């Protein structure tokens, strides 16, 4: 596959290979990402309930039998949580170190298939694969050609299924928080983790959603409270934001 049709961003691969080894150590940026589980799982459960894929989001295994593709699964922070809730999870990541760390961490008997691949390669290798939900959390801002990323992901979603994205906006505020604060001042993320020009506004992603026949359903901002170590919903999407949409026929 030629370069123009790939979503791999070479300059970013290196950063992630380095991070993978220490990733299940939940300090610093990885702890930040892991703590996002509570809110993003809640939002995903809401989305799945609203779209009728699940009937009850309460209980111990509300996602029983739901097929989920976690693109850019990293070391499996979210994949494991989703599998714990009963989902059949496929986790893909383009960084081999991540997949190895994810597999090593997975408890025996857990319902997750990890695969070191990209979304476009996965689509090529599994023609006809259809998921109830495709999730890409804090991923789309790291890929080359995000529009291709969205359109490939869309092809993997069944009609009525949902596409769930969390990422960072491209604004003055997000530059201050995600780059100045996290990378330069606190140093909990490596410098260059979030190149400013790769960050995406909700409008941009909404357009790609629509072109890939995904109807945007819900958009919210989220923010982190460093004292309670919780992510919470806010109306402002100026820094961190979450969106999901439903695949149309």
């Amino acid at each position: 596959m030629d370069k123009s049709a790939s979503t791999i961003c070479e300059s970013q691969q290196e950063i992630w290979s380095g991070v993978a080894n220490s990733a299940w150590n939940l300090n610093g940026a990885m702890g930040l990402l892991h703590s996002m589980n509570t809110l993003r799982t809640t939002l995903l459960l809401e989305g799945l309930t609203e779209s009728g894929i699940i009937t009850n989001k309460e209980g111990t295994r509300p996602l029983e039998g739901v097929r989920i593709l976690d693109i850019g699964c990293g070391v499996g922070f979210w994949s494991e949580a989703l599998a714990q809730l009963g989902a059949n999870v496929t986790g893909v990541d383009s960084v081999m170190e991540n997949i190895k760390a994810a597999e090593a961490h997975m408890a025996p008997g857990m319902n997750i298939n990890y695969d070191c691949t990209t979304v476009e390669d996965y689509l090529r290798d599994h023609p006809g694969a259809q998921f109830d939900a495709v999730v890409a959390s804090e991923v789309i801002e790291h890929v080359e050609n995000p529009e291709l990323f969205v359109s490939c992901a869309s092809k993997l979603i069944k009609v009525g299924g949902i596409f769930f994205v969390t990422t960072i906006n491209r604004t003055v505020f997000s530059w201050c928080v995600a780059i100045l604060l996290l990378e330069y001042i606190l140093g909990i993320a490596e410098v260059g983790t979030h190149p400013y020009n790769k960050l995406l506004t909700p409008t941009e992603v909404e357009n790609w959603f629509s072109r890939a026949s995904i109807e945007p359903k819900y958009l919210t901002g989220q923010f982190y409270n460093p004292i309670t170590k919780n992510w919470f919903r806010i109306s402002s999407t100026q820094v961190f934001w979450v969106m999901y949409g439903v695949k149309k026929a």
Partner: protein
Amino acid sequence: MAVLLAALGKTPGGHQLIVNSLLKGICVRKALLNSRLLSTSGSGTDAGDHGSTEFYDIVIAGGGLVGTSCAVALGRSQMFTDKRILLLETSKSFTTLESKKEGEDEPKFSNRVYAISPGSKSFMEKLGAWKHVWRSQEVLSMQVWDALSDANVTFANPGYSDPVAVVVESAVLSHAVEKQLQGVGNVTTEFGCSLQDCTFPSISNPEEKATVVLSNGKSISTDLVIGADGFKSRVRHLMGSAYLNGNYDRIAIVATLKLIEKTENNIAWQRFLPTGGPIALLPLSSEYSSLVWSTTPENAKQLMNLSEDDFVDEVNSALWKEYPRSTLVQRSCEFISSVQGRKPRLLPPSMSDIVPNSRATFPLGFGHSAYYVNRRVALIGDAAHRVHPLGGQGLNLGIGDVACLLKVLETSTSVGEHLGNLERLKHYETERQRHNVVVQTGVDFLHRLYSFDFSPVVAARSIGLSIVDSSDVLKKCIVAQASA
């Protein structure tokens, strides 16, 4: 100091209160050392490794009221229906008091009682245990007064509509909780058995299981150990948490007393005496009240050696006796009544008899565990905090712990986390320490304030108490904190 501590407790200081972080600093080295030693000796133990190691999702050490409530709460939760819970109780059976059977006399009152706050009561209702509480007495107001001055304060809900507390005997509450425990299928209770040793995961392998060794030699691997094993907690010791404790050098005498005449008896009385602590009467029924008298060990010894009749006389004298006052105190009392207007004060009941052999003593202490949680372990109840009984808060804090831990673990499970995730458990620690430390230091402060008989202090506290009494806002805050 106590005020400062209380104030700090209210700041949004994350899961580490400032006081705590100091304490924690001291014990970090020890904890690290412990965890390293443990990791070389016992790590890697998993359910599959040893044929003899049984797996339970949760092990609760201690089958007291807090431990059994916790077992009922977790066992009944929709989120833990597929989890197996092991409850360890040292004694051979629970100490319970059942209601009378056909043709029997009403069972005697047991001498250990609790003032259950509305918050704790509604949690007990949620557990379904409250319906088995067959004997209790509502307290509509609490009267607190100072033996060395006229100062007094009344705590009540507006219009005496809702009780500020419900007095329940320990054994009656145990009976209720135990009855509810019988209906919970996924809890196994191991009687005559305690937690001997426990290996927690090291910092480098935080997701390993914890391994518990029982006094009967059995080895259990588990996702979460809950320490509900009282103020001498073995679990707290094994998890290596620093523990700030102090002996008040005070003894509490409890007894069941009979009133001279039948009354509505819905007021709890507490009088601060210059002889080492408050004397308190909690209503049990229209005819009986339960006594909790905190005093110095010497005085306690004398009181325990008195004949039962003489003891009752002493109780009445403690409730009624006029102590000599200095001019300063007298003046400030006059000043208060000139500002407030003279208001009628309710008078405490007098006692006629004591229920034979109902006298008993227990020592009072303060205790605060720097950590409530660590990898795969959480402390609840007295294992985490010990408080002077003058506020009647000990069990209420423990029940609050259970309610909070239940909520935190349910959230954890609902988003697909593993039980015993430390980051999640820290939410429990933060929430509870913010509440508990405030209450503990507040109660500690009161104890200290009322230990003085130095006139300026007595005068100042009398004015302070009168201000509290005339300020509905302040009283509301105090009642809210104590009702949680």
